């Protein structure tokens, strides 16, 4: 067990709350002098589901695959920029697959002692509870999980 934290992994999905999470992760890493990793997962499972369901045609799947790669690069670059602002070293990792599975593998491989994520909302329906990737990541994480609430104060403090 690493206390204070030595290896922090932050999950990014492009949402505003995941941006809050990376800011929080950067501050934590600085305070604890921990190694920081930001991970973005290209959800190829969702893409496969769309092809299987007949919602995407082949040409569309290829186009979206490229778009998803660009999304990943953009958000990871943004995370690196934020870390650099606070003079914190960061490793950015782009993965593909089923989100909670590949994240769990990364946490194990990195021997992470803290997993930071945002994006937790109130459960609004039973159906949603069953399908939430964030929920699954929390449940399957091999290390302690820190859920960062999407809080304006974190943005203000980070930008100060």
């Amino acid at each position, binding site marked *: 067990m690493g206390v204070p934290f030595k290896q922090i992994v932050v999950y990014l999905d*492009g949402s505003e709350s995941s941006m809050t999470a990376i800011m929080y992760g950067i501050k934590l890493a600085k305070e604890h002098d921990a190694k920081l990793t930001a991970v973005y997962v290209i*959800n190829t499972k*969702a893409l496969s*589901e769309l092809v299987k*369901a007949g*919602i995407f045609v082949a040409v569309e799947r290829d186009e979206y695959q490229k778009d998803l790669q660009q999304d990943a690069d953009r958000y990871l670059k943004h995370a690196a920029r934020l870390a650099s602002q606070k003079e914190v070293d960061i490793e950015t990792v782009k993965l593909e697959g089923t989100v909670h599975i590949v994240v769990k593998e990364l946490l194990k491989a990195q021997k992470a002692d803290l997993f930071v994520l945002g994006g937790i909302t109130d459960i609004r329906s039973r159906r949603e509870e069953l*399908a939430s990737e964030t929920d699954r990541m929390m449940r399957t994480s091999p290390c302690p999980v820190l859920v960062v609430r999407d809080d304006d104060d974190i943005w203000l403090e980070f930008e100060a």
Partner: protein
Amino acid sequence: MNILDVLDKNLVKVPLMHTDKRGIINELVEVIAKAKGYSTQQFEQILDAVLNRESLGSTGIGNGIAIPHAKTDVVKQVVMVVGISRFPVDFDSPDGQKSRIFFLVLAPSKQASAHVELLASIARTCTSQVFRRMLEQARDSEEVVRLFME
């Protein structure tokens, strides 16, 4: 991103009035254009994007569902319009079944992840035959929203 993140009572229409594919698409785009106060030009831009996508292959996916969708920078966030028709509409679905449940999904070009996740969420949600039957029988937009929230 899932259905509940974008579900908006003002973007649900029950019942849809048109009985043909082109008319339904037009009506769904009208719902979003009216709700967001889009100009005629923006309405046309969205319609063109949806019809262009439709020209690649029908978005009727079977089991009485169609999910016309497109990327367009007219919208600033991923949006979804839900429409329920009293009459089955031929949407060229692979199973030959006519559609009564429609989801129009529009996304800005730089929000591919959210777009893909929302479409996958719709596909997952609508796998239940019981749920589809309840949606088809919904009397108004409030009931549609309530069904998704259960």
